[in-house]
């Protein structure tokens, strides 16, 4: 019970921190509300005051607030997917990137960006604008399916095979993307580059609603898995003896992770390292107790991504730095730290 109340304390603490960052983020940006703060405008909006101009409302609600919510949703999902995969594979480097999900998504997105003009018109207009996102989602699911098929035999999934297949799929994906880059035109090349560095600039409430549905569904399945993941640390056989259905656990974690990574990549492009950094820091603080770090990573991922996004849109005004650059900048040193720590055991 003591650990339980400790968990609630940390969750409350990080939730307050997240709220403070969200407030700061709402008031950060190049748009000027005629000397007023964003809070005043938001307050008036909530009170349905008629004195708010259309532009002010648009910026506060449709641009900044929707973007903040998207950062919270995506940060949370990327981080939880990383935490679950790392728990499942007992490997601190296991993330959506590593088992090929991101590269599958990137490949399909690149195909749509570069070759899209040949098939775009066959889709209804409502779908055309989100074609890249849909393709990315399908790409991530396909990669997952392929990895799973190759690494499963006789109903059992071999984890090492899975990681190796992920490496192979990434290699194939990046070589084809390389070819697409070669044949792409100037503007396509730019789209591709920016997509590969990730951005939350295209946030809308519709996208947030879809992401929220995915999040609620995924978390309701993954969050109760903390104890099962703890058991997995003993090894698959011992976990089985403890009454964990290991194969079912693997299946669930992998499918849900693909769903989350796919949806995130679909709406924001590839944002690396979030799934790597957050679980790593949490493990340093709270040891590898997944019942503890799984729910915490959900909030800490949001904190990380929202902070990164707020910086990304305020340090090089009036343009913005792609968010993937910032997360990579934060993530790469941690990646190196992991490598050094595990040097002896590798």
């Amino acid at each position, binding site marked *: 019970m003591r650990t339980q109340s400790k968990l609630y304390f940390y969750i409350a603490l990080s939730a307050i921190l997240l709220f403070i960052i969200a407030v700061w983020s709402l008031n950060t940006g*190049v*748009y000027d509300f005629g000397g007023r703060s964003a809070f005043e405008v938001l307050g008036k909006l909530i009170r349905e005051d008629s004195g708010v101009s259309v532009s002010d409302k648009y910026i506060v609600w449709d641009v*900044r607030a929707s973007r903040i919510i998207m950062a919270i949703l995506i940060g949370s999902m990327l981080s939880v997917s990383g935490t679950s995969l790392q728990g499942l594979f007992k490997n601190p480097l296991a993330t959506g990137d590593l088992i090929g999900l991101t590269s599958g998504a990137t490949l399909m997105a690149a195909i749509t960006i570069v070759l899209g003009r040949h098939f775009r018109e066959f889709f209804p207009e409502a779908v055309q*604008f989100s074609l890249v996102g849909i393709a990315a989602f399908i790409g991530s699911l396909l990669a997952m399916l392929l990895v799973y098929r190759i690494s499963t035999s006789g109903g059992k999934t071999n984890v090492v095979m899975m990681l190796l297949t992920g490496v192979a799929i990434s290699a194939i994906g990046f070589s084809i993307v390389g070819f697409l880059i070669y044949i792409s*035109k100037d503007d396509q090349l730019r789209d591709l580059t920016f997509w590969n560095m990730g951005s939350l*600039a*295209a946030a*809308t409430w519709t996208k947030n609603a879809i992401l929220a549905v995915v999040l609620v569904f995924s978390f309701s399945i993954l969050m109760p898995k903390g104890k099962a993941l703890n058991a997995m640390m003993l090894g698959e056989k011992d976990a089985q003896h403890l009454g964990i259905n290991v194969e079912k656990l693997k299946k669930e974690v992998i499918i849900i992770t693909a769903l989350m990574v796919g949806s995130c990549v679909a709406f924001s492009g590839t944002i690396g390292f979030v799934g790597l950094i957050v679980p790593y820091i949490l493990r340093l603080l709270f040891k590898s107790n997944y019942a503890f770090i799984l729910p915490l990573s959900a909030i800490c991922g949001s904190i990380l991504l929202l902070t990164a996004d707020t910086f990304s849109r305020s340090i090089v005004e009036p*343009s*913005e730095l792609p968010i993937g650059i910032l997360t990579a900048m934060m993530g790469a040193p941690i990646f190196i730290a992991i490598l050094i720590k595990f040097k002896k055991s590798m």
Partner: protein
Amino acid sequence: MKKLILAVSVLAAVSSCKKETSKPTENKAEVSSEAPKTNNKIVTLNGGITEIVSALGHDSEIVATDVTSTYPESLKATAKDLGHVRSMTIEPIMAVSPTLILASDKDINPDLVGKIKASGIKTELFKQEFTVGGTKKLIADVAKAIGNTDYQKLNDKIDADLKQVQPIAKKPKVLFIYARGNMMMVSGKNTPMAALINLAGGENAINDFEDFKPLTPEAVVKANPDVLFFFTSGLQGSGGNEGALKMPGVSQTNAGKNKKIIAMDGGLVSGFGPRLGEAAVALNKLLVENTK
């Protein structure tokens, strides 16, 4: 008596002037020989479109532009630079509180188009074609969008300028090299450069492919251009004429052997706006000099 009439007429003139400045909106028709005064705050997101708006006398209404809008230079001081149109986001655009956004339909990325539409700001996306007819149509379309019908003089000037292009007996083969950092691209068919080269009495050296492709030594030797054509900035970045002559394959070509290298301002070459005629004449002059 004469003095009196003069004094009265001067007074009348002065007072009418005052009226005009105090109520500019009511006198739209009277001042239409200049640009009609509107309260537009325009964001232009394409170099050619920026030039058109400015040439129609509306440069004071431009509040922000993209990175390709390099002409007229005075805009640098009065309009905000929003960076490259592919990486632009909505908030900096909204921050200049525009009433009208003008862009080319190809440049702007779909996400931003969606955001701009949602913001409710009046937006016009133009189709840009790299031909004389396409340029004239663009001028007419942009003029209509900003409420200025007095655009014929711009189109007439293009025609007048184009008449000054001297025919060149033996059309020189011109290879445009787009140098950007370490990346070298050559322009094929359907590029603004190919179109301008043709207008200026030359022949685009490579017609096997459309758009731009990376430069390879074999392709350069095979194309065997008579003249190499750069953006001024690109040529500087590649180490000037000497750098260009050292590029792989160049020394094997007529252009390399005869050291025929020319450069023009990027905005002038690729803008396809009101200065199209000027650009063609300038390139024609360079080609004539280099084919003697």
